[in-house]
């Protein structure tokens, strides 16, 4: 099982108390601490390990666990071991909030990481803010997290939707033409992503031929595609994510639409490409991180390390998000020699990730004004089959530094309010 590691609570408790669980003997006693001298520093992680985003979330957890075991081998956090407590938000806000409270109130974690789902991420940010705990949003993309709902204690690793759009729109425009049709998921992520792309398109001098808002969990895209085809655009942009994207691209290729108009999109993930048949892996996309970066220091080592704990499979962007979230917290704490969330949140402004963590060619740092990580975008094309490796499903054409595609802080709507 992917989640078996050395440090997490999930597995250790499973072994210790798995049997007791059903008998209801032990309700939930405080974590048993291994005899390592110092009391461990606890980091809580809330992610949707079950439900529609399970694959992404489980990869984030695997990445985070790798970081924990590597860091513990190097002396941990301020000389104390790190303990990662993982909780399943089940892709549900109520559950996510409850788990965040469990981690902060009962387990008294010092830091919080999560969630893949933006809505859950924002809801648990409210909890972490209330408890004044440094919180790293690993994988929720909605702009507002580091925009108008930004908080002094919340930093984010993955891109904003605006950064994603800005990184790729000019490429799409040059390559495919100026009449765009959007297949957009009908929730905040999709709305903001489409709006950002349309703004870029307008600047470039193109027009929107149409847009379809599709409900999350749409299984059949044919009706939308019939409309999209009738509008006769230069390119159909698939903004839906996860299983919706798999469904949509599978149907597009079966309809042969990709032979009539161009098909591409903005954000793409290795998890989704691996879930599609080869013929559906088409178009230009942006990746938030990619495992094949010849000549960039540390990447090969990271890939090798992840393979060891991931059934031989390569890391995805999600692994890197989880890994970086833990590395960020521990890195800044060791640098500042404190566990105080307020001091650490202050120090994280303009904190630069060291090369062995950033794993990308460009400078990678948290922006002081909105707490957003300036991380690169990997622009390129999906590949039907991996050439050297079955998982090499993306050809990176260019890598754009985060601060080149991020809007200036005053456009994000973020006004940080620090506690007195």
């Amino acid at each position, binding site marked *: *099982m992917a989640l078996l590691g050395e440090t997490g609570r999930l597995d250790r408790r499973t072994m210790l108390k798995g049997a007791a669980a059903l008998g209801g003997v032990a309700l939930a*006693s405080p974590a048993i601490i291994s005899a390592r001298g110092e009391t461990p520093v606890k980091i809580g992680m809330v992610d949707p390990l079950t439900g529609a985003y399970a694959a992404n979330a489980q990869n984030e957890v695997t990445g985070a666990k790798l970081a924990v075991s590597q860091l513990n081998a190097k002396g941990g956090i301020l000389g104390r071991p790190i303990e990662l407590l993982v909780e399943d938000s089940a892709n*549900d806000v109520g559950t996510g909030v409850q788990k965040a409270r469990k981690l902060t*109130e009962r387990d008294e974690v010092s830091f919080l990481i999560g969630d893949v789902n933006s809505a859950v991420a924002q809801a648990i940010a409210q909890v972490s803010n209330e408890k004044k705990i440094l919180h790293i949003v690993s994988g929720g993309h909605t702009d507002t997290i580091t925009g108008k709902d930004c908080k002094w204690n919340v930093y984010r690793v993955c891109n904003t939707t605006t950064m994603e759009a800005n990184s790729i729109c000019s490429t799409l425009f040059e390559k495919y033409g100026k009449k765009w049709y959007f297949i957009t998921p009908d929730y905040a992520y999709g709305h903001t992503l489409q709006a950002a792309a349309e703004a870029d398109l307008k600047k470039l001098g193109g027009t929107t031929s149409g847009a379809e808002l599709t409900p999350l969990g749409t299984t059949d895209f044919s009706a939308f595609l019939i409309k999209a085809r009738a509008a006769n655009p230069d390119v159909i942009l698939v903004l839906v994510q996860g299983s919706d994207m798999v469904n949509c691209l599978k149907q597009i290729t079966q309809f042969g639409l990709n032979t009539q108009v161009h098909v591409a999109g903005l954000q793409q993930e290795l998890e989704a490409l691996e879930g599609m048949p080869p013929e559906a892996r088409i178009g230009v996309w942006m990746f938030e991180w990619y495992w094949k970066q010849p000549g960039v220091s540390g990447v090969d080592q990271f890939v090798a390390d992840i393979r060891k704990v991931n059934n031989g499979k390569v890391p995805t962007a999600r692994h890197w998000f989880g890994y970086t979230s833990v590395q960020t917290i521990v890195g800044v704490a060791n640098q500042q020699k404190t566990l105080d969330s307020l001091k650490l949140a202050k120090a994280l402004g303009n904190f630069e990730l060291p090369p062995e963590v950033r794993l990308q060619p460009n400078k990678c740092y948290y922006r002081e004004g909105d707490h957003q990580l300036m991380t690169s975008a990997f622009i390129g094309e999906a590949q039907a089959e991996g050439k050297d490796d079955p998982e090499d499903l993306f050809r990176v054409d260019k890598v754009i530094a985060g601060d080149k595609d991020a809007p200036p802080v005053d456009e994000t709507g973020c006004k940080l309010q620090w506690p007195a």
Partner: protein
Amino acid sequence: MSAGAAKLIALTAVWALLAAAPFWAPLVGGYTALGARVLVLALAAMSVNFLLGFAGVLSFGHAAYFGLGAYGAGFALKFLAPSTPLSLLCGTLLGGIAGALLGLLIVRRRGVYFAMVTIAFGQVLYYIAFQWSSLTGGDDGLRGFARQPLDLGFAKIDILGDETAFYYFVLLCFALVVAVMGFILRSPFGRAMIAIRENERRARFLGLAVERHIWIAFTLSCFFAGFAGALYALVNNFADPRGLHYSQSGDFVMMAVMGGMRNFWGPLLGAAVFVVVQDYLSSVTVNWMSFIGLLFVLVVLFFPRGLLGFIRRRAPA
């Protein structure tokens, strides 16, 4: 010891346990927020059981009214006025009125068909909440509101920052609604409900307006569910369509059945077991869903009368 005295002792014990929860829960690995969640979901399960256990009618779509209650409370706090009591009122009304209207379409059905139709109408409401994203926030949910401090005139109680104070607030709400429920069940109307459960044909012969009674019972239970939902919005400071989904309804029914649906307090026990087991298992194993599913199967096969029913049969009082 007479049965009455035993009952009194049991009741006192229940309330004492609930009132002291913030003190004993941390000692056994619980936490205050979990207590509030148990109470809220217990209330929802009791509202399902109000109908199921006492009128013998299974609604598998009660989450819809629960979820509407959450939205009602959220809308009130966000758009009307920053008042916690007002939000509870609005939530209760929204859930209850929707239930009253849809109930008119539903009450003529019985048995498995009644269950199907309630699921289906629940899904209608779920889809409305899911699709109407300009109002409800769609899949992202409704945010941007928070429960407000209680202003009693002479004192202000901070139920937002103080978890323990909030727990007692939820407990007070719980006690009030439970009292109302108990009162109704002891009234002539409550006895009529039980008569319908026991033998609908005979009740009809005796001149009871069965459809109208069931409609009123359904409506009342939707008001209760709406109230529970409004409280749920206050627990999370959030409302989303998932609260209306039929899977949530299934959880409520399960809580009622697991605790013992013929017993007034069964759903409370069921909710406590369900919430605690789920909370615990999901920290222990990523495969917690299998265990919860197995729990469902085992309860259905071996404890159809629920935990309280089981205990009662074992210990004839």
